[in-house]
């Protein structure tokens, strides 16, 4: 696990899950967490392209919750910056969107390495 970006994975969350779940269920949970986040990121990008700001907010809310549950703190924080119901305008959020994309790339890579 030498090259895993541990800053993006909160291993205390993984440890707590391991105390309560058998190894096969934990592996399945991690697999589902990554798939679920991937799906929501795709949905968010589609909403950005369609300039649907409320849908972007809904996706960001979903991402923030799912990422926090998985112990992906940096990704959750980046998603929360876009979780602004009634306030978000896509044109003014390009930096936050870029931050989210970068965090997603880094987190996904670290998470996938951690379950290999």
């Amino acid at each position, binding site marked *: 696990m030498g090259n895993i970006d541990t800053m993006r994975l909160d291993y205390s969350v993984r440890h*707590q899950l391991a105390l*309560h779940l058998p*190894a096969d269920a934990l592996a399945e949970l991690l697999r*589902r967490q990554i*798939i679920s986040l991937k799906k929501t990121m795709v949905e968010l990008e589609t909403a950005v392209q369609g300039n649907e700001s409320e849908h972007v907010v809904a996706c960001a809310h979903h991402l*923030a*919750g799912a990422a926090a549950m998985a112990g992906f703190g940096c990704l959750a924080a980046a998603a929360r910056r876009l979780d602004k119901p009634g306030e978000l305008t896509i044109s003014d959020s390009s930096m936050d969107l870029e931050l989210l994309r970068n965090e997603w790339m880094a987190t996904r890579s670290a998470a996938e390495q951690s379950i290999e």
Partner: protein
Amino acid sequence: MEKKPIFNILVIEDEDATRFLCETLLAQEGYGVTAVSFLEQGREQLSQGKFDLILLDLNLPDADGIQLAMELSSGSDSPQILMMTARNNVEDRWSGFEAGAHDYMVKPFHPGELLHRVRNLADRASPHVVDTPKIQFPYCLFDRDKRCLETLGGDRIDLTQGEFKVLNRLISADGHPVSREALLADITDGEREGNWRTVDVLISRLRRKLDPEETKEKLILSVQGFGYRLS
């Protein structure tokens, strides 16, 4: 072993991984669990069966969970409702309770927190569960009321408080694995004092007491790196 009546929980959560986590944690604790992603699917389940508790996500794709909580709390014999959400401001929490939630849990949550809250609600509910007072094992009978075992020959084998709690929890889990941490929490009334070795020692003593004839058939199985389950 006699089958224990089930405390039924309906999980309504659209995020796949969180739904899987709740479903797995609760099922291995011995609860009957049905899990769905949409509010409408939840309504359909509620129309088909009796649930003792609903684990309800607030932010669902087809509707707000608050709506369902309000509908349910206005009826008689309504199930307990545990709301879960990433919304954590005072107004959101208050509106959850006003809608009829019995408890409110903010994401992210610790697996132990979920189990603790559900256990509290299950204890508080007037359950449809009728605990079976006596449970038959191959070589003895577990008498929950007297907190002891009885051999086939009628001899009484006393259980310590810790042994009773561990055995009771394993029986409640209905063959699903129970983590050492959960067993330790039971023994220490949630304080988690001591260490896992305490659990291992109690299991070892229980194995001997459950098999007084020393047939060496293991009734309590180890789940490697996790805990124990009944065979």
